């Protein structure tokens, strides 16, 4: 075991982690721990763009952007945070340009902008061009640009280090962050990082679904690590299902495809979104489009022999436009489906995409231990966090924005805190939880296998807590997850070695997914209304009287060691906008 001491430790090197690192490194001695090489992070998969009311191509302003964000989130958004997001968007895009990001350009050389779902002029009048983009690889360019600037600033990375535990020490009745425990993939060694500030930027947890746009490595390690230590998770029932994943594979085809004029069609060739969203049509917000697709499928208008998908039609767009604006996604269709998008429509289905919920923070990125109390020295930003700017449903292009705005804020706040704070004493035997977990898995002689449990988990999640949910389906999921958690105790691995033991890490990642799946299902069961990404067929309307509030889920351990999820609620911050019915 090795012990390291840093002012600031950042967990994760995606967009949020590296944006934070650029700020924190200038102000404090900083280490970035990441399970992947920084440029492998899933921010690189983002395609469509990053929202900011630059008004480079048409009239726009941050107030309209705030409104769209609040409405898109079905009014569960904290409006103070949304206002910061929309206001600071402009500088955060300009920051990236100055760092070197090669945005597409307008004829007069400024950053070009395009339409995206849910973004409108003047409070819903018509779609607006607000998304700044670099072809359909905006996330790739953001990730590369941030890494390049980390190289420039000399940021210190610990690559292929898996953070598996959060260290908390209680002094004067206050829970404080003392550091983290990490496992080094190359050697199997355990490292303790004592730090004045810790920032979680470890991304999402979409891998508990089967059809997903998320990478294999998005297993919610950060959320699980803090949850196990008594920190609540906020709004975990809200998960976004993106309308256009490649049929059966889940690989994302950006909404930018519809922003460029692509149309969704059912088996009769009908442009069905006209029925569900007369104004915004194919560019209505994602939850609305995903439900419309499944409604078409359920009512027998799906395509293919099994009627289980619809088409994304780009055939009316000029090939030059597809080559210039959507080169990567058209190549995905060719590579993975053998389809030529110039001439043939692409089979698609909704795909599990984005966790709106996560570790609760305030607008400085400080993590909350309950509805109001901050955990000194603990921060979170990016998809792992819940500020909450996305509420019940995130608008496209608002996450690349979120990771930049709140990544930067968390980086500054954490480093400034570290400048004035002292190290918190480490708990006794800080490595014990991780050491025991590893030892148990390495020596287990049980008969359960990781891949089998993961498959069963993904199947139950897809079947029961996806686009449509009912009391019955969610209960089925809750029971199944409980069974899987029980069986997980008997999981065994085949690789007993120390070197690059990815067999072991997949087992640990599955444990995290199971914890988070339980939180999600239990939170969903209690929310007896429909709002944004959470749609209950048995409660199809939004219920502002009883449910205009954030869910806060806590892990409770009984005297006999049984674990349960305890739910509490937190008020939504409302400033300018009164809840209205959401129409597109």
């Amino acid at each position, binding site marked *: 075991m090795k012990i390291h001491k840093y002012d600031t430790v950042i967990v994760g090197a995606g967009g949020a982690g590296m944006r934070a690192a650029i700020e924190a490194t200038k102000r404090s001695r900083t280490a970035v721990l990441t399970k992947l090489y920084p440029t492998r992070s899933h921010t690189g998969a983002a395609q469509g763009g990053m929202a900011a009311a630059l008004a480079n191509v048409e009239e726009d302003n941050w107030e309209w952007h705030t409104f769209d964000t609040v409405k898109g989130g079905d009014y569960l958004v904290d409006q103070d945070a949304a206002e910061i997001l929309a206001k600071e968007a402009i500088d955060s895009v300009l920051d990236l340009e100055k760092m070197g990001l090669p945005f*597409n350009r307008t004829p007069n050389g*400024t950053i070009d902008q395009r339409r995206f779902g849910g973004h409108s002029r003047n409070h819903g009048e018509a779609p607006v061009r607000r998304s700044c983009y670099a072809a359909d690889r905006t996330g790739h360019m953001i990730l590369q640009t941030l890494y390049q600037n980390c190289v420039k600033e000399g940021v210190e990375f610990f690559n292929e280090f898996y953070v598996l535990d959060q260290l908390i020490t209680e002094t004067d009745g206050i829970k404080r962050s003392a550091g983290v425990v990490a496992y080094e993939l190359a050697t199997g060694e355990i490292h303790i990082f004592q730090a004045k500030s810790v920032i979680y930027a470890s991304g999402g947890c979409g891998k508990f679904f089967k059809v997903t746009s998320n990478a*294999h490595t998005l297993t919610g390690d950060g959320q699980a690590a803090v949850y196990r230590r008594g920190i609540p998770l906020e709004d975990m029932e809200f998960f976004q299902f993106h309308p256009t994943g490649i049929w059966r594979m889940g690989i994302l085809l950006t909404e930018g495809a519809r922003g460029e004029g692509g149309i969704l069609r059912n088996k009769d060739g009908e442009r069905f979104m006209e029925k569900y969203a007369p104004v915004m049509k194919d560019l209505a917000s994602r939850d609305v489009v995903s439900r419309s697709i499944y409604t078409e499928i359920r009512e027998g208008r799906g395509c293919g022999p099994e009627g289980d998908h619809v088409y994304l039609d780009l055939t009316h767009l000029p090939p030059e436009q597809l080559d210039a604006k959507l080169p990567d996604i058209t190549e*995905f269709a060719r590579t993975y489906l053998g389809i030529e998008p110039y001439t043939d429509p692409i089979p698609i289905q909704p795909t599990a995409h984005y966790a709106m919920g996560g570790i609760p923070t305030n607008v400085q990125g400080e993590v909350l231990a309950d509805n109001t109390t901050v955990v000194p020295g603990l921060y979170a930003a990016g998809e792992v966090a819940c500020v909450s700017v996305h509420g019940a449903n995130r608008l496209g292009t608002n996450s690349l924005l979120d990771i930049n705005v709140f990544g930067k804020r968390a980086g500054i706040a954490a480093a400034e805190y570290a400048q004035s704070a002292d190290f918190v004493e480490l708990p006794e035997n800080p490595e014990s939880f991780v050491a025991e977990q590893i030892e148990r898995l390495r020596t287990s002689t049980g008969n359960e296998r990781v891949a089998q449990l993961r498959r069963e988990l993904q199947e139950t999640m897809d079947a029961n807590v996806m686009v449509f949910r009912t009391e019955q389906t969610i209960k089925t999921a809750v029971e199944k997850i409980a069974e899987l958690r029980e069986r997980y105790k008997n999981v065994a691995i085949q690789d007993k070695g120390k070197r690059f*033991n*990815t*067999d072991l890490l997949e087992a640990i990642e599955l444990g995290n997914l199971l914890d988070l799946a339980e939180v999600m299902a239990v939170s969903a069961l209690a929310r007896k209304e429909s709002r944004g990404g959470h749609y209950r067929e048995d409660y199809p309307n939004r219920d502002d009287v009883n449910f205009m509030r954030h869910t806060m889920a806590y892990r409770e351990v009984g005297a006999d060691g049984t674990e349960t999820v305890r739910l509490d609620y937190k008020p939504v911050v409302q400033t300018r906008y009164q809840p209205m019915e959401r129409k597109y």
Partner: protein
Amino acid sequence: MATPVLDKDAAGAPGPSSAESPYITVTFRVRRFNPEVSAEATWEDFQFEIDPKERVLDGLHKIKWDLDGTLTFRRSCAHGICGSDAMRINGKNRLACKTLIKDINPEKPITIEPIKGLTVLKDLVVDMEPFFQAYRDVMPFLITKDTNEPTRERLQSAEDRERFDDTTKCILCAACTTSCPVFWNDGQYFGPAAIVNAHRFIFDSRDEAGEQRLEILNDRDGVWRCRTTFNCTDACPRGIEVTKAIAEVKRALITRRY
């Protein structure tokens, strides 16, 4: 070597079901190495059933998840954008997640080896550090000399933006560098990926450190080592014209115009 086979029902893997099953039987012949077990690398055959429209990466997962958990490789995104899983598949560098089994002659055993020229650490995992060091050595970040930052964005025409578009696509997968015979013979050579990333800045109209980067590449281990074998261009999963980019850097070194 015999393939360890688990009881299929116990593994519960989706298997062939109906008569007109799309599944075929394939053999993956994988180069294995684990210094914790033996100092020697060996070949191991795995035979299993799979839909040939699936990716080589899906096949590797089938092995790891249902047959032999010790098989070790890197991967993340599974659709060709993170650069984790470059490997030598039937003798050619490719991304396992971007190669469909049906496209690589599955009637014969499919050979899978780690990329060449970097130290193998375990099975298909190599030490990427020298590769990233060469990348960092070309100063892969925008350098400008202006003392006052502009308040708005810097302007760039669409034509100037187009000039370096191709080389911005790089995902640092190392398929090019590890397909290069010059790199195999001498690991000191910067390699095509580092040159591609230098190109991305040299030809960016906003950048003002082109001269410095060119000097770095003028080094003994720089662009002049390139023999124009085109292996790199063939290997690049992003379709970057790597050899062309290297040629443009060579030309810029001669004319000092870029």
